[in-house]
Structure formats: structure tokens, C-alpha cells
């Protein structure tokens, strides 16, 4: 496996990120990795799966594994979402790329995150950044499939 956080793969310092809210946390996903934002898909739970795997859904004629973003990052449960969304992201694997769905409470906006606000981390959470006075956690979807 290619090492994480290598200069080639790390997103550009001022690249656009999609901000999504999950619980009371806000995550940032690099727009390059986002395939589509859609209204929350119907997820069929998979018996025996780990808690982070919400289940399987159908997207664009394909089965889509959907991860519970809140569980994934350990966010406490926030207010009940009025319009939950599923963010379909591309996750790069050894064989190419696969689509993964992230179940979130709300899709906010696309912003540029400045480099000075990076904080290094490990796993699929590649850092934290400030947007205004709000701390957002930056995800790297490519790390989702590899597990943490």
C-alpha cells in the first residue's frame, strides 16, 4: 500500500472541501473525492457488520456500502437531522477506486481550507482545520476502505 499522507496524495492546502455536519461535528471531505451528494439513501443493514457500517444501499445501479460518519469519527449525537444526506465518495484502492457512502446529518457548503490550519493526524482523519471559529475534521476517503 502506498503510504498515507505522502505529498502526492495529500490534498492541496487551499483545495475545496465539502463541509458536512454529523451530530455536532463538522467534517470536511476534499471535493475531488466527492462523487455526489444525495438525499439519504435507503440503507439495508448487514447482519454481523461492524457498527460503522450502516449497511448496503443502491446507487447508480450498484450496491453501495454506507458508513455511519458519526460512528466513524465518534461524534456525539446531535439534533435530529431534517434533511439527512449521503455523501458518495470515491475511495481509491489497490485495484482502482470504489464508491463508499457516508451517512451525514447535513451537507453545508464547499469551502477552501487554508494550509495554515492543518493539524496532522492519522487514519482517515487527516487533520483538523478551522473554518471561522468552527473546528472541522478533515477526512481522507482513500483511508476509509483500508480500515483504521
Amino acid at each position: 500500500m502506498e503510504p498515507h499522507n505522502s505529498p502526492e496524495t495529500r490534498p492541496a492546502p487551499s483545495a475545496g472541501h465539502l463541509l458536512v455536519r454529523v451530530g455536532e461535528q463538522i467534517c470536511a471531505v476534499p471535493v475531488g473525492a466527492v462523487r455526489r451528494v444525495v438525499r439519504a439513501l435507503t440503507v439495508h443493514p448487514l447482519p454481523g457488520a461492524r457498527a460503522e457500517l450502516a449497511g448496503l444501499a443502491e446507487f447508480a445501479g450498484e450496491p453501495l456500502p454506507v458508513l455511519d460518519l458519526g460512528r466513524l469519527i465518534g461524534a456525539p449525537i446531535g439534533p435530529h437531522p431534517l434533511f439527512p444526506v449521503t455523501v458518495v465518495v470515491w475511495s481509491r484502492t489497490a485495484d482502482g477506486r470504489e464508491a463508499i457512502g457516508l451517512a451525514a446529518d447535513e451537507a453545508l457548503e464547499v469551502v477552501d481550507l487554508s494550509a495554515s490550519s492543518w493539524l496532522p493526524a492519522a487514519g482517515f482523519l487527516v487533520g483538523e482545520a478551522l473554518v471561522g471559529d468552527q473546528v472541522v475534521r478533515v477526512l481522507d476517503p482513500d483511508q476509509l476502505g483500508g480500515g483504521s
Partner: protein
Amino acid sequence: MTSGSFLLFHRGGGLWGIDSGQVVRIGPGPAPGETGAATDGETLRVELAGAAGPVVLAADRVEGVVAGLAVRPLSTALRTFWPETGCGVALYSGRPVILLDPLHLPLPLVASGGPDA
């Protein structure tokens, strides 16, 4: 060896498929009071001619035997977050189906028999 047609059945909230060629017969579920590895909600039993002997799977409801499914391999994410294995995933009527590997059947689905039994 897949025959291209699968027996689809529901169990534990999920939709599963098994190569119909592997199925010996479908029988009734356990008698009341009988205990086994998987008995809650189980109404049917799918008997397979396992490579190492007969295996019986527990089923809540049988969908039917379906052919022409577009089988995809299990994605990395799926494999990461789901400990069991299968031979692939497919969609049936908008519903994701996990196609089981007869050699590596998920234990929660097995009523009796199997290579480890």
C-alpha cells in the same frame, strides 16, 4: 461452481443468495423448543450439499431462485467492516444481495453442519 442462478433468502434483516446448484432442499424450520445455533425467527432450513458434508442454513423467508444477477466483487470497505466473506454482491429489485461462498458460510447463518461443526 456457480450455475448462474441463486436462491435468494432473507435472514436477520439481510438478503442473501446461494448458488442454487448447492441447494439440496428447503425444509421447515426447527420444532418449537429445539435449540440450535440460529433459531430465532427461523422458519425454513436450506440444506446444502456441503463439500465436507451437508450444511443447513437458517432462513426467515425465501425470496426465490433468480438468475441473471450482475455480480460484483465485495468492495474493500465492505470487507473492512464486515468480517464474513462471500463471493460477491448484487442488486435484486433495488435491494443489495450478498452472495454467499459455500466454502465460507457466515456462522450466524448456519443452523447445523459445516466444516467447523
